[in-house]
C-alpha cells in the first residue's frame, strides 16, 4: 500500500471519543412490542385517548408492513420483539430549574462539552436536553414564551397544547408512511415540539441534544416544528452516543410545517456510535424527516452525518405552496465499516417552486456511501426549478461511493440541473501540502474541509465548529 494511503487510513481510524455509559436508574419495560406495551407507554405519559388511539392504529398498520430492503445497506435482520420500547430516567419530582437536573446526567453533558450551564450562559442557545426518551430540562422557556414561542418536550406539548399537536401530528409524515415511521408513530416516547406564532422571528437558535443511553433500548423520537404564517426559526439537532457492543435501533420522525411565508432551517450534526473499526456494534439510524412548505415558505435542511453504523435518512421537502423553496445541504462521512444511504426528496407541487440539493459524501476505510435523491415535478408545478449537486470524495482505495438520482418531471416548464463528481484525495494533493510543510494529517483535514465548505457555510456558526470536530479530523480554521 502506498504511503499516502497508509497515512489516510491511520487518520480515518481514529477511535470514537465519546464512549461512556451513564449510570442512571432507568424505568424500563420488558422487551417486545404488543398493544399492552403501547398502552403502558401512553398511560405512563398520561396521554389523552385520541393519541392512544392514533398509536394503536399505527401499530395495527405496522403489523401489516414489511421492512424496506431497497436501500444499499447490509445488516443482519432486526428482531423487533427483542427491543425495549420504553426507558426513561427516573425522576423523583418535576424539575423547575436546571439546578435540579441529576448531577450524573449533568456530568455526562459536560464530558461531551455541551454543559447546559455553558450553553445557557455563553452561547445564548436554548437547549431542550433529551436524555433517552424523556426531556430533562428546558431552558430559556420564559424568554421564548414572551414572544409566544412554544419550545418544549413533545409530552408537554401533548398536555399543554393538544389542539396544535392533534392538528399537525402526522400531517407531513402520515402514520402509514413507511415501516420505521409507522413503528415510531406507535411507540414514540418523547421528542421536541416547537411552535412559532404568526410573524414572529425566533430570537435564538433552538437546540436539542440527543443521547442514546440505555443498553438495548430503541430510540423513537418525535419532533414537530410548526412555523405559523410569516414566522422564522432555526433549529439545531446534535447527537453523540456512548460506545456499545450491541446494535441499537433509532427510528425518529421529524415533521416540519412551514405555513404561508414562513421559514424553517433545520440543522443536524449526528455523531452516534458508528461501531468499532471491525464493524462491530454501532447505531442503526433509520429516520424519516420531512417538511411541508406552503405559499412563499422556505424549508432548509442542513446535515452533517458522521456517526451510526447504518444511516437510512432522506430529509425531504414537499413544496406544496406556490413560490415555496426547499434546500438540502448534506455532508456524510462513512469510515471503517459504516454504511450510509442518504439523500433527499424534493416534491414540487406549487408553481414557481425552487429546490437546491448539495450533497457531499466522504468515504474512508471500508465505508460505503450512497446518495439517493428524488426530484419530482408534478403536473401543476409551472416553472419549477431544481439544482442538484452530488460530490463524492474517497479516502483510500477500499471504500465506495454510489449515486442514485431519480428525476421525474411531469411539467415541461421545469428547469433541472444536475451535477455529480467523484474524486479521490490524491497523492499529488497530499504531496503538494507536505512539500509546503503541512503534515499529512492536517493536509487531509484541510482537503476534506475544503470539499465540505459549501455545506459548512450553511450551518449556524456554533454548529459549524461542532461539525468540524465531528468529521473526525481537525479541520481547523477554514470555516468563516
Amino acid at each position: 500500500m502506498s504511503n499516502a494511503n497508509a497515512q489516510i487510513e491511520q487518520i480515518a481510524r481514529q477511535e470514537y471519543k465519546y464512549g461512556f455509559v451513564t449510570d442512571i436508574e432507568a424505568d424500563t419495560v420488558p422487551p417486545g412490542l404488543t398493544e399492552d406495551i403501547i398502552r403502558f407507554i401512553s398511560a405512563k405519559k398520561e396521554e389523552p385517548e385520541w393519541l392512544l388511539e392514533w398509536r394503536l392504529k399505527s401499530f395495527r398498520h405496522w403489523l401489516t408492513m414489511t421492512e424496506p430492503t431497497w436501500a444499499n445497506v447490509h445488516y443482519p435482520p432486526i428482531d423487533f420483539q427483542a427491543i425495549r420500547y420504553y426507558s426513561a430516567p427516573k425522576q423523583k419530582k418535576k424539575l423547575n430549574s436546571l439546578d435540579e437536573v441529576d448531577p450524573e446526567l449533568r456530568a455526562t453533558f459536560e464530558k461531551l462539552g455541551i454543559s447546559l450551564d455553558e450553553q445557557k450562559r455563553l452561547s445564548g442557545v436554548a437547549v431542550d436536553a433529551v436524555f433517552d426518551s424523556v426531556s430533562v430540562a428546558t431552558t430559556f422557556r420564559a424568554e421564548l414564551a414572551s414572544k409566544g414561542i412554544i419550545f418544549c418536550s413533545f409530552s408537554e406539548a401533548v398536555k399543554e397544547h393538544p389542539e396544535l399537536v392533534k392538528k399537525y401530528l402526522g400531517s407531513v409524515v402520515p402514520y402509514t408512511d413507511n415501516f420505521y415511521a409507522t413503528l415510531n408513530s406507535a411507540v414514540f416516547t418523547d421528542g421536541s415540539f416547537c411552535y412559532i406564532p404568526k410573524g414572529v422571528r425566533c430570537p435564538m437558535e433552538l437546540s436539542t441534544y440527543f443521547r442514546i443511553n440505555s443498553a438495548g433500548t430503541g430510540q423513537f423520537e418525535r419532533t414537530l416544528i410548526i412555523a405559523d404564517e410569516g414566522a422564522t426559526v432555526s433549529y439545531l439537532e446534535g447527537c453523540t452516543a456512548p460506545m456499545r457492543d450491541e446494535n441499537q435501533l433509532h427510528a425518529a420522525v421529524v415533521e416540519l410545517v412551514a405555513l404561508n411565508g414562513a421559514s424553517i432551517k433545520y440543522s443536524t450534526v449526528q455523531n452516534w456510535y458508528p461501531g468499532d473499526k471491525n464493524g462491530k456494534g454501532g447505531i442503526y439510524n433509520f429516520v424519516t424527516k420531512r417538511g411541508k412548505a406552503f405559499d412563499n415558505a422556505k424549508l432548509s435542511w442542513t446535515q452533517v452525518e458522521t456517526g451510526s453504523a447504518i444511516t437510512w435518512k432522506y430529509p425531504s421537502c414537499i413544496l406544496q405552496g406556490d413560490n415555496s423553496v426547499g434546500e438540502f445541504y448534506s455532508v456524510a462521512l462513512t469510515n471503517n465499516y459504516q454504511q450510509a444511504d442518504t439523500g433527499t426528496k424534493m416534491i414540487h407541487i406549487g408553481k414557481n417552486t425552487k429546490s437546491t440539493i448539495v450533497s457531499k459524501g466522504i468515504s474512508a476505510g471500508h465505508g460505503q456511501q450512497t446518495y439517493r435523491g428524488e426530484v419530482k415535478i408534478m403536473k401543476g408545478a409551472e416553472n419549477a426549478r431544481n439544482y442538484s449537486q452530488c460530490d463524492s470524495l474517497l479516502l483510500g482505495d477500499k471504500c465506495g461511493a454510489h449515486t442514485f438520482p431519480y428525476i421525474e418531471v411531469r411539467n415541461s416548464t421545469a428547469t433541472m440541473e444536475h451535477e455529480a463528481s467523484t474524486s479521490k484525495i490524491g497523492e499529488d494533493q497530499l504531496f503538494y501540502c507536505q512539500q509546503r510543510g503541512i503534515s499529512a494529517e492536517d493536509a487531509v483535514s484541510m482537503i476534506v474541509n475544503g470539499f465540505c465548505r459549501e455545506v459548512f457555510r450553511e450551518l449556524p456558526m456554533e454548529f459549524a465548529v461542532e461539525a468540524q470536530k465531528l468529521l473526525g479530523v481537525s479541520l481547523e480554521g477554514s470555516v468563516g
Partner: protein
Amino acid sequence: MLEIKDLRAGIDGKEILKGLNLSIEAGEVHAIMGPNGSGKSTLASVLAGRPGYEVLGGSVTFEGKDLFEIPTEERAREGIFLAMQYPVEIPGVNNIYFLKAALNAKRKHHGEEELDAMEFLQLAREKMKVVELDEAFMNRAVNEGFSGGEKKRNEIFQMAVLDPKLAILDETDSGLDIDALRIVAEGVNTLRSEKHAVLVITHYQRLLRYLVPDFVHVLAGGRIVKSGGKELAEELEQKGYDWIEQEAVEVAQ
C-alpha cells in the same frame, strides 16, 4: 548547502538518475538543462521527497544532514521549496489559509511564534506585489480555476512568503508567456542573497535571460554531462541538445 553524490534514483523499478553529482552553495543560482526524459523532474522529485520515487544509491546531504532521513514535510520546514511543474488544485481550501498553515508549520518547527491572521495578511500583501498577483487571489481556492500562468505565479508567491533556503524550480517557465516569465524571474531574483540558493530546472534557455544563473549544468542520460557558466545556456539554445548527447555517448565509450 546541498551536496549530491553519485545519486541513482528512479521510479517503477526503472533507473533514471544514474550517478549524478552536484554541489550547490548558499548564494548560488544553478540551472539544470537537458532534453526530455533526461531525469530533470526526477531530480526535483527525489530532492523534495515525492512518493513513488526510489533512491537506489548515492547520497544527498542538505546542510550536512542526510536528506533521505528527513520526511517530506520536514524538508519543507527546513527550507527546501519545490515550485512544481503542475501545481495541484485543492478545491474549497482558501489560498491564503493554506499558505498561512504552511508558514506557521515552518515557524513552529523553528520554535518561532505563529503569525496571527493580521500579521500574516500584511506579509502576504507585501509578497503579492512581487509577483503582481491581484488580492482577489487570496480568497480563491488553492489553484482552482487558475490559468497556467496564474498557477506558476502562485508558486512563486508561496515561495516568496515561505522564504526557503533552497528553492527548486521545476520547469516553472513551461506554458508562460513573456510577461509572466519576467514576473516569475523577478520574483525569484528578489530571493537571491548570500543565504539563499536556487536550482532552476528547465528545458529552454529563455527563463535564464531574466534569471541569470551562476552555473549551468547539462543533464543527459541521468548524469550531468557538462557544466559551465551562463554562456553554456546560450550555446545550448543555438545548437540544441544533440551535440551534447553525442558527446556524452563518446565519453561513455
